[in-house]
């Protein structure tokens, strides 16, 4: 079972090697080291699970041991974590290979690969964790890696501040996560997943505690998975390199929140007060993300808001108790979103850094295979039948429809509108980028290396294949998550019909807009619903004013400087008083001797 730790620590070794000596190595060696370790982990994992019964818990050491709380540094491999590990390592390795050519010529090549490996290590730790504390290490670690990678080209102020924004917003969520851990530790005397789930299912667990802890953990998930209102960091995170966006902000890190909730799904099934909140926030996020994505002009921003929206879908599913559909959508989304991002990266690379879709055009002839990949990804995202995206989205919609609460019909309608909008913006993007238009540049394209094209194609194929070969059905049994909803009879027909018709309508409108050039762009969408504006006005400006007026003047001057100066004064004062003992007067010295003598006599005779 200790091979699990090997699998976990291989990427860390890669991080250390590339981090410490990478700047002295050639690009090829860095790339080799950077890609080798994740691939090693992947092969080891595949081999071990194929050959033996590799599942179970492996403990490295006992970390905390109080009288009623024991925390081990332990990893757990079961079907759920195995699935996530394959996603992380599989897509991660492909993105590593892609990056070898995407980052070619960058002066911090080694640093990039070391950060990427570091991210893989922490993500694996998060996914394989057996208890909340180990997961939290991974949680924080991927936040750190995300910050490092978003601000990779830190010499631009904008990139550095995006990284900081991501980290800070994440941190706000982490407060909730920690509070959740504390409540669970306090109430259940354990933070082990299995034990929490077991304890929550028993009858005597306190409903308030369960709801509270579920709520706080959900706040943490909001921060990590970019749900309302903590979603503001994800679009700005696009200042990082595109492979980073593909890996971290599409496939793996942002799914950590969903993974955590699925891990604790028995707890969440009992948290009946929190589930509606999750569903509502998820739906609103989905809707908002889709709305804002329709007016973005940067191709990466479109995809970023699309990610926000799809994550909202997953949370909506969790909120109605459809844990398996959420996991399924996570799985399929990882593939097609990574495809979309990587092919967008290829486009950007080919066009020498151009990211504005209104300035692209006519790439269908110049990059045919890329177009196919992007097309496949778009079809999955839009939920066209026969793709994996279709199956997962329909699953979510059917479960939402069949949910027995009064609000779930409203949620379903909103999600259907979101689906339509999704189809709209992704097809609009596709038409703008690939179909001939007069905006396209006639410059010759930068050649795309095979190492870049291969992962894109692979992921595109995988995103289709997963849907085609009834893998979802197999996965459902495999994962064996609790089911709380039976799908209504009419949902099997009604939902697909509705969503397909809406999507078709949306695609048609997109075609009209792009090809026939009709413009309608409301300002509120362009300002991203004024979220950043609100944050700036309400929070940031008050913070800045507070810092400038209060902290810098009163706090800094009166309190801190006063403390420092008073320490100096104290030392000087006491030293001056002490030097009074040596005033040079002999009579004083004699007196001191007699004082000492008297004390000595007292001590000698009476103590």
């Amino acid at each position, binding site marked *: 079972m200790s091979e699990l730790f090997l699998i976990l620590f291989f990427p860390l070794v890669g991080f250390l090697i590339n981090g410490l000596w990478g700047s002295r190595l050639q690009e090829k060696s860095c790339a080799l080291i950077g890609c080798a370790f994740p691939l090693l982990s992947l092969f080891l994992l595949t081999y071990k699970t194929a050959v033996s019964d590799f599942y179970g818990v492996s403990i490295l050491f006992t970390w905390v041991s109080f009288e009623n709380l024991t925390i081990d540094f332990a990893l757990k491999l079961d079907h759920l974590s195995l699935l996530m590990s394959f996603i992380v390592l599989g897509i991660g390795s492909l993105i590593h290979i892609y990056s070898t050519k995407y980052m070619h010529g960058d002066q911090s090549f080694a640093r990039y690969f070391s950060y990427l490996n570091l991210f893989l290590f922490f993500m694996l730790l998060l996914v394989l964790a057996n208890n909340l504390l180990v997961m939290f290490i991974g949680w924080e670690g991927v936040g750190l890696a995300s910050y490092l990678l978003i601000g990779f080209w830190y010499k631009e102020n904008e990139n550095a501040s995006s990284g900081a924004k991501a980290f800070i917003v994440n941190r706000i969520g982490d407060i909730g996560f920690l509070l959740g851990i504390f409540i669970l530790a306090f109430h259940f005397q354990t933070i082990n997943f299995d034990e929490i789930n077991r304890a929550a299912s028993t009858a005597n667990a306190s409903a308030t505690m369960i709801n509270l802890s579920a709520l706080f953990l959900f706040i943490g998930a909001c921060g990590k998975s970019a749900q309302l209102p903590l979603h503001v960091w994800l679009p700005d995170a696009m200042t990082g390199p595109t492979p980073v966006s593909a890996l971290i902000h599409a496939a793996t890190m942002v799914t950590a929140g969903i993974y955590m909730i699925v891990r604790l799904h028995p707890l969440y099934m009992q948290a009946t007060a929190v589930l509606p909140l999750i569903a509502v926030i998820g739906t609103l996020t989905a809707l908002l993300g889709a709305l804002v994505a329709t007016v973005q002009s940067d191709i990466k921003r479109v995809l970023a808001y699309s990610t926000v929206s799809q994550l909202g879908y997953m949370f909506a599913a969790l909120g109605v108790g459809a844990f398996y559909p959420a996991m399924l959508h996570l799985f399929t989304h990882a593939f097609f979103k990574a495809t979309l991002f990587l092919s967008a990266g290829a486009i950007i690379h080919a066009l020498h850094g151009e990211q504005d879709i209104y300035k692209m055009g006519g790439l269908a002839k110049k990059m045919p295979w890329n177009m196919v990949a992007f097309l496949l990804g778009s079809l999955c995202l839009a939920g066209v039948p026969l793709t994996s995206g279709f199956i997962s989205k329909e699953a979510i919609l059917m479960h939402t429809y069949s949910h027995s609460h009064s609000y779930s019909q409203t949620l379903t309608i909103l999600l259907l509108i979101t689906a339509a909008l999704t189809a709209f913006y992704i097809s609009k993007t596709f038409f703008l980028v690939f179909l001939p238009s007069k905006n396209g540049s006639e410059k010759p394209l930068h050649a795309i290396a095979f190492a870049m094209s291969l992962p894109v194609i692979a992921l595109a194929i995988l995103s289709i294949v997963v849907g085609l070969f009834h893998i979802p059905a197999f996965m459902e049994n495999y994962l064996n998550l609790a089911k709380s909803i039976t799908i209504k009879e009419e949902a099997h027909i009604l939902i697909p019909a509705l969503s397909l018709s809406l999507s078709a309508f949306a695609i048609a409108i997109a075609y009209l807009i792009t090809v026939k050039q009709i413009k309608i762009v409301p300002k509120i969408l362009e300002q991203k619903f004024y979220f950043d504006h609100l944050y700036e006005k309400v929070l940031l400006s008050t913070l800045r004013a507070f810092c400038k007026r209060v902290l810098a003047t009163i706090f800094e001057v009166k309190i801190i400087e006063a403390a420092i100066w008073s320490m100096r004064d104290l030392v000087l004062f006491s030293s001056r008083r002490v030097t009074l003992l040596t005033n040079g*007067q002999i*009579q*004083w010295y004699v*007196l001191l001797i*007699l*004082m000492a*003598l*008297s004390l000595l*006599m*007292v001590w000698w*005779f*009476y103590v």
Partner: protein
Amino acid sequence: MLKLHLLFCCLAVASAVVMLLVRHPMKMALALVATMLNLAIVYGLSGAHVLAIGQVLIYVGAVMIFMIYVVMLLDIKDSSLVRPLSRYLFAAVVVLLLIAGISYHQLANTVTTQTLQAITPVGDMLSFRQFSEHFLEEYWLHFELSSVLLLVTTVAAITVLNFKKGTESL
């Protein structure tokens, strides 16, 4: 017999207290002479005749005469005559009271218990004959060393006074 002891002991202590109270060094020296004489009488009454004579000859006759000469000849009138007391008086009183109290307490414990048995009278143990015999038998080395000490003192005095022609005298 005890009454005489008590009288002259009290006189000695009284002279010492007078020393504390006067201001001028000359009056202080005279009070000190009085103390020493009273102490000499006490020694004599206790049977230590050698000590009595030695006290008068050495202390009063040499040391105190020397002190009185110095006080007379160094007729310096400075601030110590105006304000004779230093600022450590109060602290000194407190500390010394403490020491005195503890010493008295311990002395009372040891001496009283020991003298509950009758003290054998001194007799002529400390008379001239006995004293000299014991002094020059057992303490011969001390005697010689003290003579060396006096020699050193003389040499030091001469060095300081610097008896050379033409040099500035003290």
